[in-house]
């Protein structure tokens, strides 16, 4: 068994906006590229040009949300949705993957709360992956060691990089700006403010892992003019009150309108 630090000074993590994630997978391959070339052993791919299966620290799942069929004629409409859900290690405060580790290879850094694997001490037993309720850890088949999101610990403090680039590869590359990085222990940080403003959520809070990463929920959808929709045409479309029904009447209206310009 491995212990968690009694106090962490910072809680570095990600805030992921599900309202703007289009599921483009930029974060997935940027992560794969950085972490293949950097921290620890490269992320390998088996049967890479056949029925491939490789190691990824960040994956995107797409979910379909089905409305209740009873609401088919609801106003506003209740339509099916697609949600793209990026998932990587959430750097939990109570990380079960750390406490389950028999060798001390898994650990949570006291200075910033990042959960890491010391690959030199990892024997690839996979207990941590079993313990993680999010499925955020993957054993690298080639090296036989456990791989997981490092929050790009070798980028965020990297003095060879310009300061603006000292952020995780997934955040730097995200085209929609759906991924945010910062200190969630600091209520004044950009990420904490986003969480407060947008109702940021824990993933599976019932697991008691107290994840540091937060998800911003999608805004309500399919709501154009929703409050006014009662079935009456003028109320349905208050900006569409007809000025005329026939071409002649409309052209006369245009003449009157143009006089005013």
């Amino acid at each position: 068994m491995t212990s968690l630090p009694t106090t962490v000074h910072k809680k570095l993590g990600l805030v992921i906006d599900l309202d703007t994630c289009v599921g483009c997978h930029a974060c997935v391959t940027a992560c794969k590229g950085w972490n293949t070339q950097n921290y620890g052993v490269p992320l390998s791919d088996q049967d890479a040009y056949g029925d491939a299966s490789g190691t990824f620290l960040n994956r995107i799942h797409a979910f379909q949300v089905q409305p209740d069929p009873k609401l088919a004629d609801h106003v506003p409409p209740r339509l099916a949705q697609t949600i793209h859900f990026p998932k990587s290690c959430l750097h939990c405060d109570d990380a079960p993957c750390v406490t389950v580790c028999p060798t001390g290879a898994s650990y949570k850094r006291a200075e910033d709360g990042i959960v890491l694997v010391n690959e030199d001490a990892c024997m690839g037993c996979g207990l941590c992956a079993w313990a993680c309720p999010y499925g955020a850890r993957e054993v690298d088949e080639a090296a036989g060691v456990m791989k997981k999101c490092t929050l790009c610990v070798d980028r965020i403090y990297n003095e060879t990089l310009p300061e603006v680039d000292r952020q995780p590869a997934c955040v730097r590359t995200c085209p929609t700006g759906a991924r945010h990085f910062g200190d969630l222990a600091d209520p004044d940080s950009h990420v904490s403010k986003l969480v407060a403003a947008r109702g940021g959520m824990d993933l599976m809070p019932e697991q008691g892992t107290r994840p540091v990463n937060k998800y911003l929920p999608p805004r309500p959808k399919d709501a154009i003019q929703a409050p006014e929709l009662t079935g009456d045409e003028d109320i349905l479309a208050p900006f569409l009150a007809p000025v005329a029904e026939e071409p002649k009447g409309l052209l006369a209206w245009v003449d009157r309108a143009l006089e005013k310009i």
Partner: protein
Amino acid sequence: MNQPKLNLSPKVGDEIRKTTCYMCACRCGIDVHVKHTDQGDKVAYIEGNRDHPVNRGVLCAKGSAGIMQHNAPSRLRAPMKRTGPRGSGEFEEISWDEAYDIAASWLEPIRRTDPSKLAFFTGRDQSQSFSSWWAQAFGTPNYAAHGGFCSVNMAAGGIYTMGGAFWEFGQPDWERTKLFILFGVAEDHDSNPIKMGIGKMKALGGRVVGVNPVRSGYNAVADDWFGVTPGTDGLLILSLVHCLLKAGKVDLDYLSQFTDAPVLIDARPGAGHGLPLKDDDGHALVWCRAENRPRCYDAEGVEPSLTATWEQDGVTHRTVFAHMVEKYLSADYAPEAVAERVGIPARRIRALAAEIARVAFEEEIVLDREWTDFRGRTHKTMKGRPVSFHAMRGISAHANGFQTCRALHMLQILIGSVETPGGFRFKPPYPKPATIHPKPHCKVTPGAPLDGPHLGFVHGPADLCLKEDGSAARIDKAYTWENPMSAHGMMHMVISNAHAGDPYEIDTLFFYMANMAWNSSMNTSGTMKMLSDRKEDGSYVIPHIIYSDAYSSEMVAYADLILPDTTYLERHDCISMLDRPICEAEAAADAIRWPVVEPDRDVRGFQTALIQLGAKLGLPGFVKDDGSPKFRDYADYMVNHERRPGVGPLMGWRGNGSQTGRGAPNPNQLDAYIENGGFCVAHIPEDAQFYKPWNRAYQDWAVEIGLFDKASPYIFTLWCEPLRRFQLAAEGHGDRQPPDHLRERMKATMDPLPIWWDPSSAHGGEGRFTITALTQRPMAMYHSWGTQNAWLRQIHGRNPLYVPTKLWEAHGFAEGDWARVTSPHGEITVPVAHMPALNENTVWTWNAIGKRKGAWALHDNAPEVNKGFLLNHLIHELLPPKKDGMRWSNSDPITGQAAWFDLKVAIEKVAPPADLRSKPDVGEQKSPVGKGPNQVAWEVK
């Protein structure tokens, strides 16, 4: 706690080299981190270039996986000549000298006798101004790139209507727009700019609306989704126009000043009926409210009336606007009348129209910027309507696509949101109306160049590419009566026409970067057969095929001679103002690629190969007076070629290095680009950034920088005069007359105002085929290229047929089931998956995931080879025979755009095939490069 000590500052690479991505057509700037190793320089990591105007540092999944493309095992290694039968994939590697000798032995005789026997077509070519120049020098009329099967409707619809379209032509005013409406499949056109824009406008509180049968990607984050029935976008748009007109929610001031809405249309019967009235100098006439008489639209002080009539010779000329009102106020376009066909309830159509009206007119934007228009009138402010639109193939790849694209632009123009703050903005060299583009040229002279550029914009029957006997001058039959305004050519018809010897036989087919034997052709199985068909004497029906590609694609197997291209990190390229630059709404910009690492194979950039082949053939422009090569390679051409004096492929650092746009060639130009990060930006002055078609400051700036040689202001043309000219021909006017069998279709479809018709009615099947089948391109995959990428293929290695809930339940499908999908043309058997967020009468799959066994260096157990499939087998390049036995091409009758998305199918549940492989099985090709390794763990040490 015993935390290990980490190296928190590892060096990423030894050097950053900045170039341009080519993992798709988006052309983002990239920082390539290179390590110097014992085996030479190696690429260690690729990320977005923060200074680059296109992507501002971000990079998509494809770009971030570039390292796997650059090192893909499918890369070709050397020139090859075919040793087995076509399609077998059996080749022998040869030298470049031998390759050029073979090519010249085919090309030299046909250039001397009949250059049109060469058909040279390029696919995802980003050097079209160069490759078309080569073809022009060769003298063949048979050149085009892939626009005809991609989205010519979008480009031509936009250019004919307003002098530019979406994507490369313009973009939403992302900083200011409040309502962004996205039509159709567009996930990689644009790629990163749209993602960045959606993120930006959402952060600012704007609303994104998706109009698309499939709710994935951008539509998944759209605040509102309209799951339109494919092919009915035009009807939906015209219904929105109906609602807005009826409510008077149109920008009357904008329409009267900047469009042809006030132009008077000739009401006299005869050869001019329905054309704009013009003065002797060709200027369209409007009724001036101030002087109560007809005047030129651009006269100083003119006050154009939208509603006036002009009584002349016993007839009443009315304005374009009056014609529009009459047409679109018709109850035929009321939401209730169209709802069932478009698959959206009437009240939601009305709600969308109301939201457009609300944002356009209640949230008007006014910028405090003075500007002067082309009539000399100074405006104190710039007024804008913050509603913007974007569309691409989803609306254009239908037989009614040209008119649908025009309808969308008409909607934008009606609310005054084109080139105004918060709306849609052009990017240089656009705005540029059809009238100042070249016309097409097709005059062939043995041993001499063509008489001008191949592609252009026709303005009436006189501009068609017809021979004296009325037959098609081009092998693809572009610019003929069947599809007169085919501005990008019709690459999708080349193979079947060449095979049929119709309109004539050719000798050599020369393709670049186009997987015509696979996902880039309709009727894939048929195309494979045409490419390998033999005559009775055993020779091939299409005698010679030359192909250039960097990778071992399906098309490689069907060529006789392979010219292996480099990867995008090993090559020179210019993303040029002469064809498809990387401009922004507020800046002209171009870019280069340069070899950030050297090839480790015997390969050459295709453009360099063309230069060397051109010199060997002695083509004008490619040799000096003494016959020696004029350019060493493509880099030499990029710097030293001048299209007009002082204007070359690259605009930056010309002359002594300080001139932008115009200036003599500068031998240090490429170094200057490299030093600047691979691109050049020239900002547009603030008072010139909006109202560009009419803004004197913009027009002057454009002349100064060399976009055109004199100011060319114009008004938007809601009334498409060229369409009316073709209609007049169909009605019997003029010397050049269409064949009788096309008259009725021309009259019906070539309406000068946007119309809609049901494109599926021409596909036959007697009502059996009622479900639309579509493909869309994943954001993390670019055509067939991505499949050889070990990382990307793990994201998109499988492509089931996605089935909406209603059909899923009706057919009793369950997870793991298979379906037989039938069209009037063929059938496929494929795995299915359930997708609720989908138009209830549409099925779809990811584009180009399925692969032929042996291609792309994949192993035989790759899911793409087994379960992967193409819908292309169901689509024919021709429509079913009509009563008279004629078969029309499966294309837009106006532009010839391939109508991929008109495919209607029937589906039925079937038992899974015993081998669990999709059908049809198209056999196997040998891989000239072997197969990829079993394991990849790509760390550069």
